[in-house]
């Protein structure tokens, strides 16, 4: 299924900026960065549990927030892109 992960991390201090980098890296391991703090990930339920655990252990729940949108397996008709940086379809033909 496709999930959309977005986050806000408080970057006022160095520790916050480190959390931001780590969260971005984790999300990148599972999906595609479509905007600065927006990731589209194709995961199965088990992978999602792992990813969620990893993210919550990095974040600081007092200052940061993460939102996960469940787009299901029929996600293609629920996503529309307008403008630059169109990205790739992770379930389409991958050819470079």
């Amino acid at each position, binding site marked *: 299924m496709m999930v959309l992960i977005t986050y806000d991390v408080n970057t006022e201090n160095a520790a916050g900026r480190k959390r931001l980098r780590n969260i971005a890296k984790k999300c990148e391991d*599972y999906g595609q960065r479509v905007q600065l703090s927006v990731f589209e*990930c194709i995961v199965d339920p088990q992978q999602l549990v792992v990813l969620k655990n990893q993210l919550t252990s990095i974040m600081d729940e007092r200052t940061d927030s993460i939102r996960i949108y469940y787009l299901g397996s029929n996600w293609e008709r629920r996503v529309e892109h307008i403008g630059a940086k169109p990205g790739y379809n992770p379930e389409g033909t991958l050819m470079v």
Partner: protein
Amino acid sequence: MKKLLNTLYVTSKDAYLHQQGETVVVKVDGQEKIRVPIHNLENIVCFGPMTCSTPLMELCGARNVYLAFFSEFGKFYARVEGPVHGNVLLRKQQFAGASRDPFRTDLARTFVLAKLANCRNVLLRAAREHHDETARVDIQHAASELSESARNLLEPVSLDVLRGIEGEAAKSYFSVFNHLIVAQKEDFVFNARSRRPPLDKVNAMLSFVYAVLANDVRSALEGVGLDPAVGFLHADRPGRPSLALDLMEEFRPYLADRLVLSLINRQQVKPGGFENSASGAILMNDETRKTLLSAYQERKREQIQHPFLNESVPLGLLAHVQAMLLARYIRGDLDAYPAFCWR
């Protein structure tokens, strides 16, 4: 049921593949072209000269992602494999079965019978739709020759006779293959199967698709823990994935031949998309290769009702499903191997 994961095809010259975290990054001229999480992939297939980092090979090995290298024209070079996994007991049973008759011959017969049935279906379907009367008669004649070969196989025959019958059947199948090409006929002419090198455009496409398909079948066999090198119909030879070639027989007509035919008949490939090499070989150019690969990849996502499992499966998982059924038969959980017959 296993999920159909994606295949990453790398066809750009001088691409550099490396690992970053859990992702595969492809760079061309130092510019990042794509970055894919390894979890979404089951195969990385590279065509032509390129570079690949060892950490990526390590990651692929650890995650059971098969990394294969081909020449730009589909000649198989190498595969990177991780540690041997799967069930040693299953492999031992496979080795024992492959050196024991009648187990070996029976299984070889099943592969050939399925291939003949599928070839026949390809022909009959083409005959039904064909508008030219003489061609239709020819095709129907070849189809009945295939039925005849299949009937001969039902007698107890030795492995050598079986291979002989298969060869004859392949000959009559390919003798009418040219009739199955209905568009761009003057540019795409098929006389006989030629390989190493392919001598015409149709053969070039067939060889390429067979190579890619063989790689997929091989991955599927490894995925269920069978040894792709120990075959039943094909003799063992160093470096030859005999079992992959065995299992592939039943897929050739349905997955590969029909794909090539429809690309030609729908004019998705153009006669200009080929190159002659000095050795007389006809080879595809970059664009044709890409068309072929994306058509193949799209075809893999089509769903069919599997005749034995009675379940809807994407075509890309067909090799995996058959490998799984084969493993069950070898292990003794099934009384016979239900080869894939297209209806």
